[in-house]
C-alpha cells in the first residue's frame, strides 16, 4: 500500500487526498487551518494541523517515510517552494507540486518536484475544448497520430448494427466500447437510467440514440467519422 502525504488542503489538495484514499492509499493530510483539517479527518488515514515548512514537525509525523508527497499550497508560492525543497531533503522519491504560473513551475522543478501540475491551465484548456467540440467527451492522445475518443453516436449510425455500419472497413476506425444508457422506472415510478459499458461490442449490436462510442483510430479518420 502506497503512503502519501498531502500538504495543503484547499479544493485541489482535498480532492487529491480523497481520490488517493479511494484508490487504496494511506493518506496523511496536513494544513495549518484547523477547519480544513477537521473537514477531511473522517476521510483520510490521518489529518494533522501543522506548519508544513517546519522540518522537525514533519519528521515527527513520519513524513520522511512516505512514498509520495503532494505539495498543494500553490497560491502561497513561497510556502510551496519551501515545502517542495523540504520534501526533497526528506528523501521522498515522488514529489508532485501544484504551480500557479510557468515560472513557479520552473522553480518547483529546480528545487526537486518530480512532477509539476497546472490545474488551472489544464482545466482552462479542457473547458475550451469541450466548448469548441461539444461532441467530444473524452480525448486520450496515444501518439501524435492516434487517439481514443468518446463521441456521441453519429445520426447516420442510429438504428443500425455495428455489422451494417462496418466502421473498420468503411471508416478505418475501431469502436472499442459503447457507453449505453438503460432507461428504467424507480420504485416510486420515476424515470431514470443506468449506464452500461459494452466492451468490444459485437457486430450484432445496434447503435442507439443515447449511445456514446469509444473509438480508436488515427486523428484524421476519427475526425471524418465525427462529421458524419
Amino acid at each position, binding site marked *: 500500500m502506497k503512503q502519501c502525504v498531502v500538504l495543503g488542503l484547499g479544493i485541489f489538495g482535498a480532492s487529491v487526498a480523497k481520490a488517493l484514499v479511494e484508490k487504496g492509499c494511506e493518506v496523511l493530510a496536513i494544513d495549518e487551518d484547523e477547519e480544513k483539517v477537521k473537514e477531511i479527518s473522517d476521510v483520510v488515514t490521518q489529518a494533522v494541523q501543522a506548519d508544513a515548512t517546519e522540518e522537525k514537525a514533519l519528521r515527527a509525523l513520519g513524513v520522511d517515510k512516505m512514498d509520495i508527497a503532494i505539495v498543494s499550497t500553490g497560491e502561497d508560492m513561497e510556502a510551496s517552494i519551501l515545502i517542495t525543497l523540504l520534501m526533497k531533503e526528506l528523501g521522498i522519491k515522488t514529489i508532485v507540486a501544484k504551480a500557479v504560473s510557468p515560472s513557479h513551475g520552473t522553480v518547483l522543478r529546480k528545487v526537486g518536484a518530480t512532477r509539476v501540475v497546472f490545474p488551472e491551465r489544464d482545466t482552462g484548456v479542457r473547458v475550451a475544448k469541450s466548448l469548441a467540440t461539444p461532441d467530444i467527451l473524452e480525448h486520450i492522445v496515444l501518439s501524435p497520430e492516434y487517439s481514443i475518443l468518446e463521441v456521441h453516436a453519429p445520426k447516420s449510425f442510429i438504428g443500425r448494427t455495428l455489422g451494417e455500419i462496418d466502421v473498420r472497413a468503411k471508416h478505418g476506425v475501431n469502436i472499442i466500447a459503447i457507453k449505453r444508457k438503460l*432507461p428504467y422506472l*424507480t420504485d416510486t415510478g*420515476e424515470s431514470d*437510467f443506468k449506464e452500461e459499458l459494452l466492451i468490444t461490442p459485437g457486430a450484432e449490436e445496434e447503435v442507439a440514440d*443515447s449511445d456514446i462510442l469509444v473509438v480508436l483510430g488515427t486523428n484524421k479518420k476519427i475526425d471524418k467519422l465525427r462529421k458524419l
Partner: protein
Amino acid sequence: MFRKEKKDFKNLEAKIAQIKDRKEKAEKLIELGKFYFLNEKYNEAIGKFKEAIKIDENNAEIYYNLGVVYESKNLPDEASQLYTKALELNPGHQLASKHLEKIVGK
C-alpha cells in the same frame, strides 16, 4: 431488472385524446411519456412530456422526466435547465438534484 412494457401506443394516444379532465389528461400523458422513454423512443417521450407541460405547467414531475430524456439523448444543457426548473417548483425533488449535481457539479 425492469422488463420493457409492450403497449399499444396508438391505442393509448387515442384514449388520451378523449379525456376532458385536465389533471387526468396530464397524468396520462406523463404515463405515456414514461412508456416511450422505457422503450427508448426518446423523441416521442419528449413530445408527450411537452404536451403535458402545456396542460399542467407547474408540475415539477414533468420537467424532471423531460430532463431525464434529454440527458439520455446526451443533451446535458437542456437537461440541466429542466432539472433546475423542477427544483424551482419542488426544492425537495431528490432525483432532480442528484441528476443536476451530476451534470453541473456540486
